[in-house]
């Protein structure tokens, strides 16, 4: 009897630990949103990706449709090569869609935003997006603003 009770209590303890881990994985962390179902890969080259990171969201019209899988420097063009994984749910993206890097809020995380094009051909696995727009680097903007202001003051 005593031993059975101990076994039951220890079992409860272990199960409580596993439930807590499940809670951490499903409710607290991004485990379930990290899985992109049945993905296909699309790449794009950017002049400057700012602070875009691997696993950043890819969205179209504000809806998340995939994730950034890999970022590397293309040594021929000296551009950043960004490989994106797009969910298999969204197969009908026009081939002339354009990609730009935007920021959530003023100083938030950066993400890739896709703008649909007009063609009737759709993107397939391994395609490359031709039209890209680099990240807006806030420091450069401020620099330009200061520069134009000082020039305006001279005139």
């Amino acid at each position, binding site marked *: 009897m005593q*031993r059975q009770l*101990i*076994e039951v*209590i*220890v079992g409860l*303890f*272990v199960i*409580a*630990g596993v439930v*807590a*881990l499940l*809670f*951490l*994985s499903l*409710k*607290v*962390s*991004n*485990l379930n*949103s*990290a899985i992109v179902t049945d993905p296909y890969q699309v790449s794009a080259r950017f002049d400057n990706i700012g602070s875009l990171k691997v*696993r950043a969201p890819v969205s179209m019209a504000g809806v998340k449709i995939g994730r950034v899988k890999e970022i590397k420097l293309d040594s021929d063009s000296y551009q950043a090569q960004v490989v994106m994984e797009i969910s298999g749910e969204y197969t009908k993206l026009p081939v002339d869609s354009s990609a730009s890097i935007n920021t959530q809020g003023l100083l938030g*995380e950066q993400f890739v935003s896709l703008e649909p094009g007009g063609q009737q051909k759709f993107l397939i696995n391994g395609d490359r997006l031709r039209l890209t727009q680099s990240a807006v680097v806030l420091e450069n903007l401020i620099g330009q603003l200061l520069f134009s202001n000082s020039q305006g003051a001279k005139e």
Partner: protein
Amino acid sequence: MISLLRSTGALSLSVFAATGRACILLIQMLFTLPLAIRRYELLLEQLYRVGVLTLPIIIVAALFVGMVLALQGYNTLVDFGAESSLGLLVALSLTRELGPVLAGLLFAGRAGAALTAEIGLMKATEQLAGMEMMAVDPLWRVLLPRFLAGVISVPLLAVLFTAVGILGGYLLGVDVLGVDQGVFWSAMQQGVDFHQDVMNGLLKSLVFGVLISLIAVFMGYDASPTPAGVSTATTLTVVLSSLVVLAMDFSLTSMMFQ
């Protein structure tokens, strides 16, 4: 001058010797693993005494830590209008650092000290020697179940600490301070990465579990068999395992989160 050098040298030598004996003890214990698995009810009993009985202090402490994090975080974040990040702040601090570290410290105080005192007293009253006389190796009969129970318990306790702490932060942040419930959870899910944060926290707590349990068991087994020896060993267990947890936490953090 010479005596100062000599005492420093003697101290470092004894520290090295104790570390070596602890490693030998660990290897010897692991060799008796098959025997201990056959008598798994010994492990169950220790899991109950070491793990389950530590649960109340873990849960109460986690609740308070989560609530205090939410309160302090809210007071700071609200100045920047960033109280929507409260959930993220609470969850990241708990999964990465506070969960494993505080669970380890509480475990060292609550269970590690008890393990040392128990084993030390068994040695002082010659129960361990008596077992050896009966051809029962105290390594697998006494030491290994306690060591394994600690190694299994600490990660479970750390995960529970983290989960309860986040719930405590939620309780205070959403119900008392009025942060929006949906924002609280979604900011958390955006920022907390399963592999990077949750799994690394779990790995940390596993390392802490091995270290604390080894220190506790070794200190008891290595204690000089006198009342003063047992009391010194118990103190050393708490002091050393706390220091080791904190130092190890720093080195693990600097390796994991670059």
